[in-house]
Protein backbone atom coordinates (compact mmCIF):
# COMPACT_ATOMS: atom_id res chain seq x y z
CA UNK A 1 0.00 0.00 0.00
CA UNK A 2 1.50 3.32 -1.08
CA UNK A 3 0.98 6.29 1.22
CA UNK A 4 2.06 9.92 1.11
CA UNK A 5 3.86 10.12 4.46
CA UNK A 6 7.43 11.48 4.29
CA UNK A 7 7.30 13.11 0.83
CA UNK A 8 9.05 16.28 1.98
CA UNK A 9 11.84 14.28 3.69
CA UNK A 10 12.39 12.40 0.45
CA UNK A 11 12.52 15.59 -1.66
CA UNK A 12 14.91 17.21 0.80
CA UNK A 13 17.15 14.16 0.74
CA UNK A 14 17.27 14.12 -3.04
CA UNK A 15 17.98 17.88 -3.18
CA UNK A 16 20.79 17.58 -0.64
CA UNK A 17 22.29 14.69 -2.56
CA UNK A 18 22.22 16.62 -5.84
CA UNK A 19 23.76 19.69 -4.16
CA UNK A 20 26.60 17.65 -2.63
CA UNK A 21 27.40 15.77 -5.82
CA UNK A 22 27.31 18.98 -7.89
CA UNK A 23 29.60 20.84 -5.46
CA UNK A 24 32.08 17.97 -5.35
CA UNK A 25 32.06 17.85 -9.17
CA UNK A 26 32.75 21.59 -9.45
CA UNK A 27 35.52 21.53 -6.87
CA UNK A 28 37.35 18.54 -8.39
CA UNK A 29 36.87 19.80 -11.94
CA UNK A 30 38.07 23.33 -11.33
CA UNK A 31 41.27 22.25 -9.56
CA UNK A 32 42.33 19.87 -12.35
CA UNK A 33 41.77 22.39 -15.17
CA UNK A 34 45.13 24.00 -14.30
CA UNK A 35 47.20 21.60 -16.45
CA UNK A 36 46.40 22.84 -20.04
CA UNK A 37 48.13 26.20 -19.51
CA UNK A 38 51.48 24.41 -19.15
CA UNK A 39 51.67 23.71 -22.89
CA UNK A 40 51.94 27.38 -23.76
CA UNK A 41 54.41 28.21 -20.99
CA UNK A 42 56.65 25.33 -22.13
CA UNK A 43 56.44 26.58 -25.75
CA UNK A 44 57.37 30.04 -24.60
CA UNK A 45 60.41 28.84 -22.66
CA UNK A 46 61.51 26.54 -25.50
CA UNK A 47 61.36 29.40 -27.99
CA UNK A 48 63.39 31.67 -25.73
CA UNK A 49 65.96 28.92 -25.12
CA UNK A 50 66.40 28.24 -28.85
CA UNK A 51 66.75 31.91 -29.72
CA UNK A 52 69.28 32.42 -26.93
CA UNK A 53 71.35 29.42 -28.05
CA UNK A 54 71.38 30.63 -31.66
CA UNK A 55 72.42 34.15 -30.69
CA UNK A 56 75.21 32.75 -28.51
CA UNK A 57 76.53 30.81 -31.51
CA UNK A 58 76.15 33.82 -33.83
CA UNK A 59 78.16 36.26 -31.71
CA UNK A 60 81.78 36.81 -32.82
CA UNK A 61 84.53 36.76 -30.20
CA UNK A 62 85.71 40.25 -31.07
CA UNK A 63 85.11 43.18 -33.39
CA UNK A 64 85.02 42.80 -37.18
CA UNK A 65 88.10 45.05 -37.26
CA UNK A 66 90.17 42.19 -35.83
CA UNK A 67 92.03 40.65 -38.82
CA UNK A 68 91.98 37.09 -37.39
CA UNK A 69 89.08 35.22 -39.09
CA UNK A 70 88.62 32.97 -36.05
CA UNK A 71 87.92 36.08 -33.98
CA UNK A 72 85.94 38.36 -36.29
CA UNK A 73 83.51 35.70 -37.54
CA UNK A 74 80.79 34.11 -35.48
CA UNK A 75 80.87 30.37 -34.84
CA UNK A 76 77.74 29.89 -36.95
CA UNK A 77 79.29 31.81 -39.84
CA UNK A 78 82.44 29.67 -39.75
CA UNK A 79 80.38 26.45 -39.71
CA UNK A 80 78.29 27.52 -42.72
CA UNK A 81 81.31 28.77 -44.68
CA UNK A 82 83.74 25.94 -43.93
CA UNK A 83 82.93 23.08 -41.62
CA UNK A 84 79.39 21.85 -42.28
CA UNK A 85 76.69 20.90 -39.83
CA UNK A 86 78.10 18.18 -37.55
CA UNK A 87 80.09 20.35 -35.16
CA UNK A 88 77.24 22.87 -35.06
CA UNK A 89 74.80 20.08 -34.20
CA UNK A 90 76.87 18.90 -31.25
CA UNK A 91 77.44 22.41 -29.96
CA UNK A 92 73.82 23.50 -30.28
CA UNK A 93 72.65 20.26 -28.72
CA UNK A 94 75.01 20.80 -25.78
CA UNK A 95 73.74 24.37 -25.29
CA UNK A 96 70.04 23.53 -25.29
CA UNK A 97 70.36 20.31 -23.28
CA UNK A 98 72.53 21.70 -20.48
CA UNK A 99 71.15 21.58 -16.97
CA UNK A 100 72.34 22.97 -13.66
CA UNK A 101 73.60 19.54 -12.67
CA UNK A 102 76.46 18.77 -15.11
CA UNK A 103 75.78 15.01 -14.96
CA UNK A 104 72.23 15.40 -16.23
CA UNK A 105 71.09 16.46 -19.66
CA UNK A 106 67.74 17.37 -21.14
CA UNK A 107 66.28 15.51 -24.12
CA UNK A 108 65.50 18.22 -26.67
CA UNK A 109 65.76 17.44 -30.38
CA UNK A 110 66.00 19.75 -33.36
CA UNK A 111 66.12 20.05 -37.15
CA UNK A 112 68.20 22.91 -38.50
CA UNK A 113 67.80 24.20 -42.06
CA UNK A 114 69.60 26.95 -43.99
CA UNK A 115 67.54 29.14 -46.33
CA UNK A 116 69.34 31.27 -48.89
CA UNK A 117 68.51 33.22 -52.04
CA UNK A 118 69.83 32.36 -55.47
CA UNK A 119 70.78 35.78 -56.86
CA UNK A 120 70.61 34.66 -60.51
CA UNK A 121 67.00 33.48 -60.41
CA UNK A 122 65.78 35.12 -57.22
CA UNK A 123 64.56 31.72 -55.97
CA UNK A 124 64.68 30.72 -52.33
CA UNK A 125 66.67 27.53 -51.73
CA UNK A 126 67.23 25.36 -48.68
CA UNK A 127 69.95 23.05 -47.38
CA UNK A 128 69.70 20.68 -44.46
CA UNK A 129 72.07 21.89 -41.75
CA UNK A 130 71.72 19.25 -39.04
CA UNK A 131 69.03 16.81 -37.86
CA UNK A 132 69.34 15.35 -34.39
CA UNK A 133 66.27 13.11 -34.91
CA UNK A 134 63.39 12.60 -37.31
CA UNK A 135 60.44 14.88 -36.72
CA UNK A 136 57.03 13.22 -36.67
CA UNK A 137 54.21 14.99 -34.89
CA UNK A 138 55.65 16.28 -31.64
CA UNK A 139 54.66 19.67 -30.28
CA UNK A 140 57.46 21.85 -31.69
CA UNK A 141 58.48 25.51 -31.89
CA UNK A 142 60.41 27.25 -34.66
CA UNK A 143 63.29 29.66 -34.01
CA UNK A 144 65.28 31.62 -36.60
CA UNK A 145 68.51 33.54 -36.90
CA UNK A 146 69.90 35.74 -39.66
CA UNK A 147 73.54 34.91 -40.34
CA UNK A 148 75.96 36.94 -42.43
CA UNK A 149 78.23 34.70 -44.56
CA UNK A 150 80.74 35.21 -47.34
CA UNK A 151 81.91 31.77 -48.50
CA UNK A 152 85.12 31.71 -50.53
CA UNK A 153 87.48 29.10 -51.88
CA UNK A 154 87.17 25.33 -51.86
CA UNK A 155 85.59 24.89 -48.42
CA UNK A 156 81.96 25.60 -49.14
CA UNK A 157 80.00 22.60 -47.78
CA UNK A 158 76.52 23.93 -48.65
CA UNK A 159 77.41 25.21 -52.13
CA UNK A 160 76.43 28.82 -51.42
CA UNK A 161 77.27 31.59 -53.85
CA UNK A 162 80.62 33.27 -53.30
CA UNK A 163 79.43 36.73 -52.32
CA UNK A 164 78.47 38.80 -49.29
CA UNK A 165 75.07 37.48 -48.30
CA UNK A 166 72.60 36.95 -45.49
CA UNK A 167 71.11 33.50 -44.90
CA UNK A 168 68.40 32.38 -42.50
CA UNK A 169 69.05 29.48 -40.14
CA UNK A 170 65.75 27.98 -39.09
CA UNK A 171 65.58 25.49 -36.21
CA UNK A 172 62.59 23.33 -35.37
CA UNK A 173 62.86 22.47 -31.69
CA UNK A 174 60.90 19.89 -29.70
CA UNK A 175 61.08 17.83 -26.54
CA UNK A 176 61.23 14.06 -26.86
Amino acid at each position, binding site marked *: MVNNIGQLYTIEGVAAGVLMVFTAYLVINSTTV*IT*PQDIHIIDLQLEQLGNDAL*SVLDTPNSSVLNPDPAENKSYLQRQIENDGGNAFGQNFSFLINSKVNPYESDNLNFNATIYYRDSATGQLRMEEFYQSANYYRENAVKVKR*WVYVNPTGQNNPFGLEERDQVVLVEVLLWRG
Partner: protein
Amino acid sequence: MARLNDEGQWIVMMGFIISISILILAIAVGESSLVGKTTSESVLEFSKCDIQDLRSEIMTLKERGILDNPEIKNDLSEISIQRVSAVTYFSSWKEYNYNYIFLHFNNGVTTYNEVYDEYTP
Protein backbone atom coordinates in the same frame (compact mmCIF):
# COMPACT_ATOMS: atom_id res chain seq x y z
CA MET B 1 1.30 14.59 5.87
CA ALA B 2 4.44 14.57 7.97
CA ARG B 3 5.49 17.81 9.63
CA LEU B 4 9.05 18.99 9.03
CA ASN B 5 11.22 19.30 12.08
CA ASP B 6 12.25 22.97 12.14
CA GLU B 7 15.15 22.52 14.58
CA GLY B 8 18.77 22.83 13.36
CA GLN B 9 18.11 25.66 10.90
CA TRP B 10 21.49 27.20 11.74
CA ILE B 11 23.24 24.03 10.67
CA VAL B 12 21.34 23.96 7.38
CA MET B 13 22.09 27.64 6.70
CA MET B 14 25.82 27.23 7.46
CA GLY B 15 25.85 24.28 5.10
CA PHE B 16 24.44 26.44 2.33
CA ILE B 17 26.88 29.29 3.02
CA ILE B 18 29.90 26.99 3.02
CA SER B 19 28.89 25.21 -0.16
CA ILE B 20 28.23 28.48 -2.01
CA SER B 21 31.57 29.92 -0.88
CA ILE B 22 33.37 26.77 -2.07
CA LEU B 23 31.61 27.23 -5.41
CA ILE B 24 32.82 30.84 -5.74
CA LEU B 25 36.39 29.86 -4.82
CA ALA B 26 36.28 27.07 -7.39
CA ILE B 27 35.26 29.57 -10.09
CA ALA B 28 38.15 31.83 -9.06
CA VAL B 29 40.63 28.92 -9.33
CA GLY B 30 39.22 28.06 -12.75
CA GLU B 31 39.73 31.63 -13.95
CA SER B 32 43.37 31.60 -12.85
CA SER B 33 44.24 28.89 -15.37
CA LEU B 34 42.98 31.15 -18.15
CA VAL B 35 45.34 33.90 -17.04
CA GLY B 36 48.47 31.76 -17.53
CA LYS B 37 47.20 30.65 -20.95
CA THR B 38 46.44 34.09 -22.30
CA THR B 39 49.66 35.71 -21.04
CA SER B 40 51.90 33.02 -22.51
CA GLU B 41 49.93 33.12 -25.77
CA SER B 42 50.32 36.86 -26.10
CA VAL B 43 54.05 36.61 -25.37
CA LEU B 44 54.37 33.90 -28.04
CA GLU B 45 52.52 36.03 -30.54
CA PHE B 46 54.65 39.13 -30.03
CA SER B 47 57.64 38.89 -32.37
CA LYS B 48 60.26 40.12 -29.91
CA CYS B 49 62.96 37.69 -31.04
CA ASP B 50 62.40 38.39 -34.76
CA ILE B 51 62.89 42.12 -34.22
CA GLN B 52 65.95 41.69 -32.00
CA ASP B 53 67.46 39.31 -34.54
CA LEU B 54 66.85 41.64 -37.50
CA ARG B 55 68.28 44.57 -35.59
CA SER B 56 71.40 42.69 -34.54
CA GLU B 57 71.96 41.49 -38.12
CA ILE B 58 71.69 45.03 -39.47
CA MET B 59 74.20 46.20 -36.86
CA THR B 60 76.57 43.41 -37.99
CA LEU B 61 76.20 44.57 -41.60
CA LYS B 62 76.82 48.17 -40.54
CA GLU B 63 80.04 47.20 -38.76
CA ARG B 64 81.22 45.34 -41.83
CA GLY B 65 80.35 48.35 -44.01
CA ILE B 66 78.16 46.43 -46.47
CA LEU B 67 74.79 47.85 -45.54
CA ASP B 68 74.25 49.35 -49.01
CA ASN B 69 74.95 46.13 -50.90
CA PRO B 70 71.76 45.64 -53.04
CA GLU B 71 72.08 41.84 -53.04
CA ILE B 72 72.03 41.79 -49.24
CA LYS B 73 68.95 44.01 -49.21
CA ASN B 74 67.25 41.57 -51.57
CA ASP B 75 68.34 38.58 -49.45
CA LEU B 76 66.85 40.08 -46.31
CA SER B 77 63.54 41.19 -47.81
CA GLU B 78 62.93 38.06 -49.93
CA ILE B 79 63.81 35.47 -47.28
CA SER B 80 61.93 37.49 -44.69
CA ILE B 81 58.72 37.55 -46.75
CA GLN B 82 58.85 33.82 -47.42
CA ARG B 83 60.15 32.35 -44.15
CA VAL B 84 59.49 34.91 -41.39
CA SER B 85 56.24 36.17 -43.04
CA ALA B 86 57.23 39.74 -42.32
CA VAL B 87 57.95 42.80 -44.43
CA THR B 88 61.39 44.18 -43.64
CA TYR B 89 63.07 47.22 -45.11
CA PHE B 90 66.12 49.24 -44.21
CA SER B 91 68.10 52.12 -45.66
CA SER B 92 71.04 54.21 -44.55
CA TRP B 93 72.21 57.76 -45.24
CA LYS B 94 74.66 60.32 -43.93
CA GLU B 95 73.91 63.84 -42.75
CA TYR B 96 76.67 66.14 -41.46
CA ASN B 97 78.61 64.01 -38.99
CA TYR B 98 75.90 61.44 -38.40
CA ASN B 99 75.19 58.10 -40.03
CA TYR B 100 71.51 57.17 -39.94
CA ILE B 101 69.87 53.79 -40.44
CA PHE B 102 66.11 53.46 -40.90
CA LEU B 103 64.73 50.03 -40.09
CA HIS B 104 61.19 48.76 -40.63
CA PHE B 105 59.56 45.48 -39.62
CA ASN B 106 55.89 44.52 -40.08
CA ASN B 107 54.46 41.03 -39.70
CA GLY B 108 50.80 42.04 -39.83
CA VAL B 109 50.38 42.08 -36.06
CA THR B 110 53.41 44.02 -34.89
CA THR B 111 55.06 46.97 -36.61
CA TYR B 112 58.48 48.23 -35.59
CA ASN B 113 60.18 51.34 -36.97
CA GLU B 114 63.49 52.71 -35.79
CA VAL B 115 65.93 55.41 -36.85
CA TYR B 116 69.37 54.60 -35.52
CA ASP B 117 71.97 57.35 -35.49
CA GLU B 118 75.70 57.21 -34.90
CA TYR B 119 78.20 60.03 -34.63
CA THR B 120 81.15 59.69 -36.99
CA PRO B 121 83.72 62.50 -36.70
